[in-house]
């Protein structure tokens, strides 16, 4: 862990730039976006179809090994292949397709409005709280419910409560059951108990959740084990482990995207009457990248480029590494922080921040 490293210069806050500068910055980012849009085509179609097939063959291989493998080690191999399949399908395919990145292809199999992914979270719930709430209100306290997922205190601006003392523990539980955390996120059961939403509203939100979880549990814990006959414990345990590995991995990647040291959190007041240029700046300062090789980017669904993803959530994600140097150059030009580190440093920073924030703030830090 090396959270002791100083954060990248977190100099600029909205207001440090003039209105004209924000507009100029917006034009430069828009130009990048237009360039990618104009070159969108067969290359992107080939990429996403390749990943779809790769994920599918990993799933077929993994499940076959779990069902029929009798060689020692086949269980481990099966779990590895099935985990890989779920990670690729959830991250590089599901998440990105649901953002509408491949809608331009007009292919019903890759349509953002109808795609359903291999995870207990229903696509319809996800489209609301992730695509809308999180991507529009990124890192605004009280509006972006992804800030700590209601489990972790991730910024000094959040009030400390004794519950936070053990937040590393709560976080560990969230990470293990992350798909469930994601699935219940949009239901807002706490809102119901606080009287903020009606029973009718809650029921409406619960419907897609119950529908999806039933099918998902049936598939991994009834149908596939049953097909394995006497081999069922092996398959059941394998599916459970694959889901667990996927949960841990997606959680780590997602926490690296918004909660390392150096990422800025905003208040509602700061973002009132925000211009498009200011919105861009908030997206860049509210996100963090992870550096690594190309295969690693695919494994994260290109959330390794969370900054570029938050600027342009509907551009094909595998283009983010191409435009990242230019985005970074724009950040330098306008004196905006660009939080990018290697995987271990970034996740280390997330954990050390989490430990620091589990303790009550000292008087000096409050000012």
């Amino acid at each position, binding site marked *: 862990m090396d959270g002791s490293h100083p954060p990248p210069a977190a100099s600029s806050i909205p207001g440090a730039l003039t209105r004209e500068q924000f507009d100029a910055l917006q034009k430069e980012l828009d130009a990048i976006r237009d360039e990618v849009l104009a070159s969108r085509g067969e290359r992107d*179609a080939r990429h996403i179809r390749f990943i779809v097939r790769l994920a599918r063959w990993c799933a077929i291989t993994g499940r076959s090994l779990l069902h029929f493998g009798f060689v020692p080690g086949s269980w481990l191999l099966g779990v590895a292949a099935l985990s890989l399949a779920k990670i690729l399908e959830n991250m590089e395919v599901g998440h990105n397709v649901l953002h509408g990145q491949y809608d331009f*292809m*007009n292919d019903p*199999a890759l349509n953002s409005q109808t795609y359903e992914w*291999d995870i207990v979270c229903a696509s319809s719930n996800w489209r*609301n709280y992730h*695509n809308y709430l999180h*991507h*529009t209100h990124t890192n605004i306290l009280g509006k972006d419910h992804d800030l700590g997922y209601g489990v972790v205190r991730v910024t000094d601006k959040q009030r400390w409560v004794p519950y936070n003392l053990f937040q590393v523990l709560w976080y560990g539980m969230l990470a293990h059951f992350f798909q469930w955390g994601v699935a219940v996120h949009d239901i807002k059961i706490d809102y119901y108990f606080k009287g903020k939403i009606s029973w009718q509203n809650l029921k409406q939100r619960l419907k897609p959740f119950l529908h999806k979880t039933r099918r998902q549990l049936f*598939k991994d814990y009834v149908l596939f084990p049953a097909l394995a006959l006497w081999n069922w414990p092996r398959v059941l345990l394998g599916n459970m482990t694959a889901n667990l590995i996927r949960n841990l991995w997606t959680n780590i990647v997602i926490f690296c995207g918004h909660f390392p040291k150096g990422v800025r959190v905003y208040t509602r007041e700061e973002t009132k009457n925000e211009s498009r240029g200011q919105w861009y700046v908030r997206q860049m300062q509210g996100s963090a990248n992870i550096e690594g090789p190309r295969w690693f980017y695919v494994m994260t669904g290109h959330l390794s480029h969370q900054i570029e993803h938050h600027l342009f959530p509907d551009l094909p994600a595998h283009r983010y590494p191409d435009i990242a140097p230019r985005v970074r150059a724009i950040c330098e030009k306008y004196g905006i922080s660009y939080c990018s580190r290697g995987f271990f440093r970034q996740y280390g920073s997330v954990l050390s921040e989490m430990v620091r924030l589990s303790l009550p703030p000292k008087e000096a830090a409050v000012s």
Partner: protein
Amino acid sequence: MPFLPSLSAVWRSPWLAPFNDVNALNDLLGQVNALWSIDRILARVIEVRTETADTRTFVLRTNRLWPGHRAGQHVVVEMEIDGVRRHRTFSIASAPGRSREIDITVRRQPHGRVTGWMHEQLRPGMVVGLSAPRGDFTLPETLPPRLLLIAAGSGITPIMAMLRDLQARGARPDIRLVQLSREPADAIFRNELEQLARGWPQLQLRTWYSRLQGRLDPRALDALVPDADQRSAWLCGPHVFMQAVLAHWQAQGRPAPQHESFGAPLRRAASGERVAVRALKAERMFTASADLPLLQEAESAGLQPKSGCRIGICQTCKCVKRSGVVRNLLTGAVSAEPDEQIQLCISAPVSELSLEL
């Protein structure tokens, strides 16, 4: 070739997932043989023939899901061009009965992205998607005693299918065929038609070449075919031409000819104008300003489309535009293709629209 007679309720049950994931199964089958599919009609191009300088015939061999067509019907062809699936409608030029083989004859449109691609890139061996055959621009089972067929430009294609069908069935009714083209070299199927007429005395060809003879006044049709009012008429060609002929027929008090139009031209709305929008799911029409986001106008009209951020980020308000042209208010990009997805919160209409709303 795997084929399921119908996708029954059992098959569609969500509890069978992922074994009934049709997209995945189609993709797996397609990797074995490009024509295999559970539910998609697919066809391989087996021959490309040049008809005139700007017209080509593509001979397609379909998979077993093709139900067969009637002469005069059309089909929607799905092609993937630079990663994007595009759809265009073409009349089938061949007679039914050739086993799983159809011809589509395509004139290259000036600046046409899809027809241009077909002429330059679509080669034997490549695979396209097809809809089921559609349309009722066909001849009746019991033929009327005398027929008049009027074809302008590529409007000859469905009429060619009818003539080929009659010939194959040995029927030789009394037909006057008026073919309009720019000039003789532009007349599609000219040789085949002349040959057909040689062995079929009651089939008489009348030609009209606009570059030599000027634009055809519909009244001149009566001079070309003096007993036109005694004949049952079929008419196919560009929209403007057909409107003129239909008006003439109406003025003469004759029953309207059967007709098939190749798409009406869209009028572009100017700023400040309001255009008609058809909401297909709600089965409603409303008008929308050419300057405002469609989302706002749909809501003003009492519709309740799903929406989220309202600034073009979250994709919640995405909907399929069946026809018409819209402009992206953020980028200025224009979407003119049928069946494209648009974001209502940042799209303003440029022409009349049909939306899946």
